[in-house]
Each structure stands twice: as C-alpha cells, then as structure tokens.
C-alpha cells in the first residue's frame, strides 16, 4: 500500500504552519470521494451559520467547534465570530479563523454583516453567547439582514442547540418568527447525557412537532475524559485526533481518547452529511451530497 504525503487542511486553517502528513491510498480515495467544494467563486452566495442556545452549558460552543472541524475537513474555508465578548470561548480553540465580537455593538455588526459580500471567505459561523439567541435574531432583523435573507442575498442556517429543560424548548416558539426564511435546525446535544423528552411523547409532540424545521441534528455523547482532554489541549477536535499541539508539534495524547474523539467526529460528520450541509453552502449538481439527499 503506497503512502502519499498531503497537507492536512484542518490544521492549515487553525495553526501557524501546515503539517505534512502521510495518507495511504484508501484515505486519498476517501477524500476524493467527498468531492471537496472548490474555492468559492466571486459570485457565490455568502452563507451565515448561527449557532445559539437558550442557556449555557448545553454544548453550544462544542457544536460550533464540531461544525468548524467538519467544514475544514471538507475544504470549506470559513471565518467564525465568537460573541462571548470580551473573553471569547470558541476563539480559544480556533484562534486563526475566529474573531471575538460584541453582537450588540454597531461597529461589530458592521464588521460581520457588511463584509459578507466582500470577504473572500463566503461561509461565516457565528457562535452566539448563551442566552443571547433571541437578542441576536432581533439584532439581525434590525440591521436588515433577515430581509436580505428573504430577498435571497444570503443563505442563513440556524443551529438552535437545545437544553433538557422546558424553558429551552419554549425558546423554539420565541425564535420561530425570525427563522422563517432561513434553514432552522434543532440540535440535540447528547454530550452531557441529556435527554430531550423522548420518553414523554406528549411533551415531545408539543414542542418538537409543531415547529417547522429543516431538520434535527443529533450530537452524540463523547466520553467525558476525552472531552476534558480536548478542553485542556485547547485545539480543534481534529488537531487533537491528529495528536498535534496548536503549533503542530507532537502532543502525546492518549490514543484511546483520540480514538473516541475521532469516532465522535465521524458520527457528527454523518449527521451534517445527512442534512446536506455542504450542498446548502455550495449547491451544485452531481455532488455526493446531492446524491445522498435523493
């Protein structure tokens, strides 16, 4: 089995220098099968992916991090905005592509929205601070962004990360008026062994079945120790799996923990594939994503 060197793009986007890794034929073929989306064309519609939650501790930033990893793995150049101003949380793991902003500040609103059409990077991920989803939607409405979405100027995806409480589910109703022209996904994050009232059909029906969504995304549970070690490492998930530090040096992480994270990332990638995320960001005919959706 021949091995071919290739650059690991996920590490290119998140670290100072690219790291050459070896891939065998099977890995190269697998990457080719994924049909990586080509560099964004100038006239391609910009996409905004909002990741938000009602309360803290539901794994919102985890979802944002997994999303950035998925996009990087699929060669989608992305920029991210961390609204946990001023310290940031997402920024800690993806410093190269993340900017800490205050979404209530006009200048930062301009920084995000006014550059959607002009920035070379066409996909923007906004990690909304805990409890700020409704405020963020109001700000986006006030700035005319939602009107622009309705007019077809931008693609808008909302990943609403749910918590296990009724209060979290009630936020679905509050958000509903703002997401009508976007792709609204409910994200069930099982990282903390959470349940979402699947055991109570009446409650489940009351909240999950009355709102029109583009779909549900399930984030599976990740072993606590594995999660903790990634937190300590302060790197993207894929960098941890590759056993590298943020500087690209060998990290010496446990193989077992890396294995758990790798499998977890694959399951999440399957979920994003299932909802056709890549096709939504750069629709084209004949892609593996388009075929998968049929």
């Amino acid at each position, binding site marked *: 089995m021949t091995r071919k060197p290739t650059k690991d793009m996920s590490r290119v986007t998140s670290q100072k220098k690219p790291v050459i890794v070896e891939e065998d034929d099977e890995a190269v073929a697998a990457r080719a099968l994924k049909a990586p989306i080509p560099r964004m064309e100038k006239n391609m519609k910009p996409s905004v992916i909002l990741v938000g939650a009602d309360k803290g501790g539901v794994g919102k930033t985890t979802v944002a991090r997994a999303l950035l990893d998925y996009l990087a793995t699929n060669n989608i150049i992305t920029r991210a905005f961390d609204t946990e101003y001023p310290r940031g949380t997402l920024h800690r793991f993806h410093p190269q592509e993340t900017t800490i902003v205050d979404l209530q500040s006009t200048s930062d609103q301009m920084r995000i929205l006014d550059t959607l059409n002009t920035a070379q990077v066409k996909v923007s991920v906004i990690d909304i601070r805990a409890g700020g989803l409704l405020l963020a939607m109001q700000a986006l409405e006030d700035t005319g962004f939602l009107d622009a979405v309705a007019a077809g100027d931008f693609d808008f995806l909302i990943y609403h990360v749910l918590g296990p409480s009724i209060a979290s589910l009630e936020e679905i109703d509050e958000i509903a008026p703002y997401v009508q022209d976007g792709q609204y996904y409910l994200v069930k994050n099982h990282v903390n062994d959470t349940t979402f009232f699947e055991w109570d059909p009446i409650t489940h029906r009351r909240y999950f079945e009355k709102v029109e969504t583009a779909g549900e995304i399930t984030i599976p549970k990740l072993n606590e120790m594995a999660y903790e070690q990634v937190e300590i490492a302060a790197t993207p998930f894929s960098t941890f799996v590759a056993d590298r530090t943020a500087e690209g040096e060998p990290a010496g992480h446990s193989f*077992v923990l890396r294995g758990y994270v*790798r499998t977890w990332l694959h399951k999440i990638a399957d979920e994003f594939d299932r909802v056709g995320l890549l096709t939504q960001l750069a629709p084209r005919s004949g892609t593996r994503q388009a075929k998968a959706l049929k």
Partner: protein
Amino acid sequence: MQSLGCGGAAIGPVTHMTSGGRVYICCSPDRRVGVSTTARLLTDYRLLKGERVAGFDTDPHEPSYGVHFPGLVKAVNTADIRDQISLFDTLLGEDSAPKIVDVWSRAYGRFFETVREIGFFEEARDRKVMTILFYHANTTESALNGARELHRSWPEIRLVIVHNEGAAQLGAKARDILAHYPAGGKLVIPELHAPVNKTLEDASLSLANFLHAPPPSMSIVVRAALKAWLTPIVTQLNSFELRLAMESGLFSN
C-alpha cells in the same frame, strides 16, 4: 485449516510487518474454554525465550492469568476509561516487547466494542504492530458466530483458532466443528489429566522455569506428564513464530 505445527502453504492474511511489536489477544465469548491457559502458555513461551513480556488480565476480580505472573501482568477493568488508556495505549507503545491480553468472557463484548470505536486494529496496522487473535473454539453457536463476526469486521487480522481439548471437548466431530471456523492458524492444547492439571493451579509454578529445570520436589510422574503436555505446545508455537517471521520478511534483505 492451517495448523501452527504443520508445514504447507500459509492461508489467511499475510502480513508484511517488518518492525514494531506484537500483540496477542486471547479471547472467547464463552467462559471456561481455556483462554487464561493460552495466555499463560504464550507468556511462559516468551519467558522461555528470554524475552520481556507485558501481560493484561481483563478480569479485575479474579485475574486467573495475572496470578501466575505478579509484576508482569496487570489487571485492568475494560469498563474504566483510565484502564482502557492503560491497556490500549500500552499495546500500541513503542516498546517492542510482546504484549499478551487475556480477555475475560464477560468483558468480551465491551473489549471489542472499544477496539472498534477507537480504531485499535487500524492504528496498530499503521504503527506496524502485529495483532493476533487467539480465539477459543467450542461447540456453541455463539463461539462460531463470534469468530465469524471478528473475521468479518477485521479480515486482515490473523485469527488463530485454539482448541483446548481438555477445557472445550469437541468430541468425535471436532474436525468438522473446527472446519467451520475462519482461521489463519490453529493451536491445539492437549488434554491434561486431572491430577497433573491440579499442579497447574499452583500460582508459583512457572512453566518456563519448569522447562529449564523442573522443581526437584515435583513428582516424577507429574513431571513427565507436564513435559509431555508442554512439548507439542512449544513445538506449535515455535512453528507459528517462525512462520510469522518469514511472512514479515525478517529473513529477507
């Protein structure tokens, strides 16, 4: 089915490992079929050759393999993440000393579930660590299905079928039963008569030391029976190791 002790063309997966360590995983989904005995024999075989060994007993409550090798075999609980790290990270470590794992029957499902989830066999292949499964046959459907499932999941991993004639008697249809198992080799452990078998239970009895110099206090009858039992096992293991060495190209330029 290729026997470890026979000549003839090799069947099953051919490995081309030229470096890296070896991991021997002794297992069965059923209990009392001789798994710990095989782990013990493999360990004593390596010690007989003057090699270092690292062993893991996955029965944290009654480590019947580990009791014979204090200090050499570590008891691990495969349900505990820290013990999983201790086990699997060591199996893939740069230390080239052979590693032997006794998979407790109750830990069988969890063990291979973990192997699958963390991609252990794939990582071992990438690190040129040879992994060999010593899977114990018996008359049950679950044993046969288990072997087939392992072979289906990881067809490139060498699966050696162990027939312990004393612990898992297959009767007159032994040949037919074993023929159904997917195998890259076979190891036959002869039956040992009960009085002699009792001697094996002595935790202080080292089979490696016995072969070097039997304890003078041991009964001559027991001594002879034990040696007669061990000799064909050692012969099979010698042939097996030689075959592995030839397949891995150790003797090529």
